[in-house]
């Protein structure tokens, strides 16, 4: 990790800065977070708090999953929500029609996600920019219409999944179901984040992905098979979305096309990654948590989603206009006060009458 001395507030700095002066020791900070996350159900968190946390974790995982293809690889996938829905439906069908326990059903969800992603990725990854976005969006819409028509997906009435932990696949002690669901989501989400961190930040694979994003021709000229790399990232990111969709189905116990294949799901992932910071490991974590909580809070105070959507619109405008590197860009100093000022000035310039 590169040294970014002086970019943290002094109080935070004293906590995570090591005495040997070799940069921040993030391990300590992450260690504390990890212990807290594992211990929280035993520290007095009730069903309400755990449900909020399950939501936070799931959206962090989903935002990170989108960040793989959208941020690190720079491919605007506007159909990513389809894989969340595919995962949810495959889990549902496996548990209802095949009477499989949750764990094998979740594996099937991942496999189906990967197979669909490969089949869709081969033709669509040849497209660039807006064309890729439109193609993937159309695919997602097609999946939603298909799920509404088919019998196996329950059509317009959806699927109802078993709601006891007996369907988990392994015998478990008798604890409230929400605690298990919290741990399932914790393992999966942390898994997605760690996988992203290792593969994209600390592995040659990630360097190749960024190389293809920055300059595909140069990458090819250096022996990198750009088509293959893009396909790998796409399959990986879609598979993780499908697995999270499977876990969501088991959590909610009801799968309906208008819900799990709603285009808002993709929109949320994109917004979270964008607001947090595209192509960074911390961006989707910050963006996912912040925006999910904003959503819940606005539902609590304004009673509907209408206000949330306008708030999102405002937030996206602010980020795109003033801090294109997202919240992470602000924290690391990539975007500083003078950048914001010059962005504001150039914006005001456009409103001046000649």
């Amino acid at each position, binding site marked *: 990790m*590169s040294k970014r001395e002086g970019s943290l507030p002094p109080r935070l700095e004293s906590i995570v800065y090591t005495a040997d002066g070799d940069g921040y020791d993030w391990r300590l900070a992450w260690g504390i977070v990890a212990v807290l996350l594992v211990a929280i159900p035993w520290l007095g968190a009730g069903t309400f708090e755990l449900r909020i946390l399950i939501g936070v974790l799931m959206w962090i995982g989903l935002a990170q999953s989108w960040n793989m293809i959208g941020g690190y690889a720079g491919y605007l996938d506007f159909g990513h929500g389809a894989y969340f829905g595919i995962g949810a439906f495959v889990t549902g069908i496996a548990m209802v029609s095949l009477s499989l326990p949750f764990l094998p059903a979740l594996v099937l969800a991942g496999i189906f996600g990967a197979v669909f992603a490969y089949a869709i990725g081969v033709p669509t990854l040849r497209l660039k920019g807006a064309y890729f976005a439109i193609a993937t969006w159309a695919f997602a819409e097609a999946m939603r219409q298909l799920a509404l028509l088919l019998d196996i997906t329950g059509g317009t009435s959806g699927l109802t999944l078993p709601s006891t932990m007996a369907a988990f696949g392994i015998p478990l002690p008798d604890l409230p179901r929400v605690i298990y669901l919290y741990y399932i989501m914790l393992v999966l989400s942390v898994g997605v984040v760690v996988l992203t961190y290792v593969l994209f930040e600390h592995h*040659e694979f990630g*360097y*190749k992905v*960024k*190389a293809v994003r*920055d*300059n595909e*021709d*140069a*990458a*090819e*000229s*250096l*022996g*990198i*098979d*750009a088509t293959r790399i893009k396909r790998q990232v796409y399959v990986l990111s879609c598979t993780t979305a499908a697995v999270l969709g499977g876990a969501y189905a088991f959590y909610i116990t009801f799968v309906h096309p208008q819900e799990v294949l709603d285009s808002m799901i993709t929109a949320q992932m994109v917004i979270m990654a964008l607001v947090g910071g595209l*192509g960074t490991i911390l961006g989707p974590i910050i963006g996912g948590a912040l925006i999910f909580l904003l959503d819940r809070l606005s539902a609590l105070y304004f009673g509907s989603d209408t206000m949330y959507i306008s708030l999102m619109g405002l937030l996206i405008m602010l980020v795109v206009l003033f801090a294109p590197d997202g919240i992470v860009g602000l924290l690391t100093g990539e975007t500083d006060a003078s950048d914001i000022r010059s962005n504001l000035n150039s914006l005001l310039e456009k409103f001046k009458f000649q």
Partner: protein
Amino acid sequence: MTETVLETTNLTKRFGALTANDDISLSVDRGEIRGIIGPNGSGKTTLFNNLTGFYTPDEGSIVFDGTDITEWEPHRIARAGMARTFQIVSPFRNMTVTQNLLAVEAPDSIEDKHARAREILEFLEIDHIADNEARGMSGGQQKLLELARVLMLDPDCILLDEPSAGVNPALEKRILDHIQELNDDGTTFIMVEHDMDVMRTIADTVTVLDQGQLIAEGSFDEVTGNDRVREAYLGREVDLEEVLG
């Protein structure tokens, strides 16, 4: 005895009505430094793109190291040992210098990529900026980074598109010295270069293109003395009396 490393036969590439490479047959010996010159739009960069798989020629064939690579994709050609740089530098901006090198799909013969990267950076004397992000580097340093990345492929043949363009004289000399040094170790170079002084000092053989065609080949002095070459660069000499009557 000289051995041919690269050979093109009747290479032709058309863009609509324009024939950017017209029936080019050339052969490059192993260990040679080949200069490619010609006026703007004569087809030099198109030739590079044909050779490295970025274009598929309409006619003709390319044989590299005894293998027909005409239809190969760029990454496959790079891995086979023919590497290139671009006229416009293209560092991977959001990565450090070392990460730029580690991104390269090096051949299996390189066991320790980190060690190889360190060696190359030391050789090119840019090891002190190994951990700097590429986007903060000067234009000259970016040129060196491009050369460093290419060396990660351990190539037999390197195609350089204007290596000294936009580089200050001191750095230009450094780059040329490195090229000479690598060449002494057996690496073949094919260079597009506008700076004729550079060509005179470094190129063993010079190939001249004009309007997509190969019009002359030989030592620097031979080709610059050639009438067709002078014509391509300067235009035809006219007898004023004849024209004016």
